[in-house]
C-alpha cells in the first residue's frame, strides 16, 4: 500500500506543553544514499524523547544534524525562535553525550568538565564551583583529578554527562551512551539518567536501538525506520496501539495475523469472530500476553472471546514468565506469554479477547 508521509503522531495529551525544538521536513542524502526522508518532529521542553531505530535507520544522523555535525540536505531546524541549522555546532545551545564518551585524554576529569566553560569565558570565577556541582551530581567528585584512561567505562560516561550538563544547555543529546556498558550497569544507568533528567528539567533527546531501554526511560518514543518516522507516541501507546506491523514487531513480541473480513466476520485461518471493520484483507497484531489458558470449561462463545486448541511446541524460560510457541490444529503457530508453570499437557484450550487483536498497517519494503 502507499508509503506514509505523515507519521502516526499521537496528540500531546497536555496542550500547554511548549515545543522547544522544531524539526521540519529534514532530509539527508549521502551521495546516492537517502538516509533521512522528510522527518518532522517537535521536542517539548522538559521531555525525555527517545529516537529509536535499528542500525541504518538514520537515528544517529538525525541526532548529528541537530547537534550540527551534519548539515541536512533539505528542511529546517528551529529552536527558541532561532533558525538552528544556520549555526555551527559551537554556537548552538545544545550539547551532546557521545557514544564512546569522547573525553579528552590529555585533560583530567575536572578539566574535561570545565572545558566548555573555559572556552567561553576563561576568567570566570565560578567555573570551579559549577564544575564541582556538576561532578557531585554525577557522583564523580572523588575522581576529579584522574585522567580518563584511569577510570572505568561507566565512570567515563558520567564524566561525559557532567561535561555536557555543566554548560546548562537547553537540550541534551545522547548518542547511545549506554551501549558500551554491561547489562546490569546499563539497567542501573537507565534509571539514573531518567531521574537526572527529572532533576535537571531540560529536554533529553536519546538515541538507542534497544526498545526496552526506550520504553523504560522515555516520555515519548519516535520510532525511525529506514529514514522515516514510523510512529511517535508514549511508550504505553506505542506498545498497546502500534500503528504498523513493523512497530508491533520491533517493540516487544507480537503475533502478526493475516485475515479476511467479509460481511462483518473476520476470518483468520480457522479462527473467526465478529467485527465492525470494513471488508477486505487485514493485518492484526496480537500480543503474546493477551493469549491465556482457558479456565474451566467455559466453552460458550462470547462475542468478544476467541477460543482454540493448540499444542505447546517450544518453551523459553524468562524467569518470571515463559514464552511458548503453540501450534494450532490448522498449523498456525502463535507465541504465548504465561506466568511460569511446570510441565504443560500437550493439547490445551487457549483464548484471547478480540479487542486485543489490533489492526495494523502494512510496513512495505522501502527502497
Amino acid at each position, binding site marked *: 500500500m502507499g508509503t506514509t508521509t505523515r507519521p502516526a503522531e499521537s496528540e500531546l495529551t497536555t496542550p500547554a506543553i511548549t515545543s522547544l525544538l522544531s524539526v521540519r521536513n529534514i532530509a539527508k542524502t549521502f551521495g546516492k544514499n537517502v538516509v533521512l526522508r522528510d522527518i518532522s518532529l517537535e521536542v517539548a521542553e522538559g521531555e525525555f524523547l527517545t529516537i529509536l531505530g535499528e542500525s541504518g535507520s538514520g537515528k544517529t544522523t538525525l541526532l548529528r544534524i541537530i*547537534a*550540527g*555535525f551534519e548539515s541536512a540536505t533539505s528542511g529546517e531546524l528551529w529552536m527558541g525562535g532561532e533558525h538552528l541549522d544556520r549555526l*555551527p*555546532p*559551537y*554556537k548552538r545551545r*545544545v*550539547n*551532546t553525550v*557521545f*557514544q*564512546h564518551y*569522547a*573525553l*579528552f*585524554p*590529555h585533560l583530567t576529569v575536572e578539566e574535561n568538565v570545565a*572545558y*566548555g566553560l573555559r*572556552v*567561553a569565558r576563561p576568567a570566570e570565577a565560578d567555573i570551579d564551583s559549577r564544575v564541582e556541582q556538576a561532578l557531585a551530581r554525577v557522583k564523580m567528585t572523588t575522581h576529579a583529578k584522574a*585522567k580518563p*584512561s584511569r577510570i572505568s567505562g561507566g565512570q567515563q560516561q558520567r564524566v561525559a554527562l557532567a*561535561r*555536557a550538563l555543566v*554548560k546548562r544547555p537547553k537540550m541534551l543529546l545522547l548518542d547511545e551512551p549506554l551501549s558500551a556498558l554491561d547489562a546490569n550497569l546499563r539497567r542501573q544507568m537507565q534509571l539514573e539518567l531518567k531521574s537526572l533528567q527529572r532533576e535537571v528539567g531540560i529536554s533529553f533527546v536519546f538515541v538507542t536501538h534497544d526498545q526496552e531501554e526506550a520504553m523504560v526511560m522515555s516520555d515519548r518514543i519516535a520510532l525511525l525506520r529506514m529514514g522515516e518516522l514510523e510512529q511517535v507516541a508514549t511508550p504505553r501507546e506505542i506498545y498497546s496501539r502500534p500503528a504498523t506491523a513493523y512497530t508491533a514487531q520491533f517493540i516487544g513480541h507480537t503475533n502478526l495475523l493475516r485475515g479476511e473480513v467479509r460481511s462483518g466476520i473476520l476470518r483468520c485461518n480457522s479462527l473467526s469472530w465478529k467485527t465492525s471493520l470494513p471488508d477486505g484483507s487485514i493485518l492484526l497484531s496480537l500480543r503474546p500476553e493477551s493469549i491465556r489458558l482457558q479456565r474451566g470449561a467455559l466453552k460458550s462463545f462470547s462475542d468478544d472471546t476467541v477460543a482454540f486448541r493448540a499444542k505447546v511446541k517450544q518453551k523459553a524460560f524468562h524467569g518470571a514468565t515463559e514464552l511458548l510457541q503453540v501450534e494450532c490444529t490448522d498449523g498456525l503457530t502463535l507465541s504465548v506469554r504465561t506466568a511460569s508453570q511446570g510441565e504443560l499437557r500437550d493439547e490445551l484450550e487457549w483464548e484471547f479477547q478480540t479487542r486485543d487483536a489490533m489492526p495494523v498497517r502494512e510496513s512495505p519494503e522501502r527502497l
Partner: protein
Amino acid sequence: MFSRAYRSSVTVPPLTWVVVFLVVPYFLMFCYSFWSVSQSQIIVHSWNLDNYRELLRVPVYWQTLLRSMWIAARVTLFSLVLGYPLAYFLSFYAGTRKDLYYQLVIIPLWVSYLVRAYAWKTILGSEGVLNTLLQYLHLTKHPLEFLLYSPFAVVLTLTHIYTPFTFLPIYAALEHIPRNLVEASQDLGASPQQTFWRVIFPLSIPGVLAGATFAFVLSLGDFLAPALLGGPSGIMISNIVVSLFGAAYNWPLGAAISLCMLVLVVSLLFVSERLEKKWSFS
C-alpha cells in the same frame, strides 16, 4: 611457550652480529679517542686525554660544533613549519584524496638523497637555474652569491630532505586523534582555532617531538650537503671528522669527535623519549 632451542636460535645470531659489528666498533672508537698519532702517521697507543683537551682548546672544533647545531636547529624549525601544516591539511581537510597526497609526499623520500642535493646545487649556483631565471626576468643583474656555498644552501637543502621526515610522525599522530574529540570540543562551544590549540595540538606533540628529533640529529651529523653546497663557511662537524680520517690523518682525534657526537645524540634521544612519554595520553 617457546622452547629453549627456538629462543636461542632467534636471539643468538642477531645478538652476535650486533656485538661484533656495533658494540665492538663503538668500543674501539672509544679506545681510539684516547690514543694519538705520531709524526710518521702511525697510531700510537699511549693512553691520554690529549684529544679531548685539543677539542676544548682549539676554537675551530667547538665553533664548528655550535655552527652545526645552529644549522640543525634551523633545519628542524623550518621542516616543522613546512611539515606540520601540511600534515594537518592532509589529515583534516584532504578528504578522499588523502591517500594520494600522502603518496605524493612520500615519493621524494625515495629519491636518492645525493640526487636531490645535487639538484639543489644546479639550481643555486651562480650559473644555476635560479640565478639565470632571476636575471632572465630582469629581477637581478648579477648572480646572487649567497645562494650557494653558504650555510643558507645547507639549511635549504637539508630542510628539503627532512620535511617529509617531520611530516610523517606528525601526520600519524594527527590521524590517531579520534574525530569525536574534535566534535566534542566544538559541541562544547570551542571555535576551530580553540579546538586546534586545546585539543589537536597537545595530542600531536609526540609526533612533533619524534620528527624534530630525527631531523635535528641527522642534520647535525650530515656531511654530504655541507661538502657539496656548504663552501668554507658552511663546514659542519662531520666534514672535519671526514678530513681527519682522510687527508688530515688523525684517527684518534676523529674518533674523539665521533664519540662526542655519539654521546650528544644518545642524550638527545633520551631527553626526547622522556618528553614524548610525558605527552602521550593513550
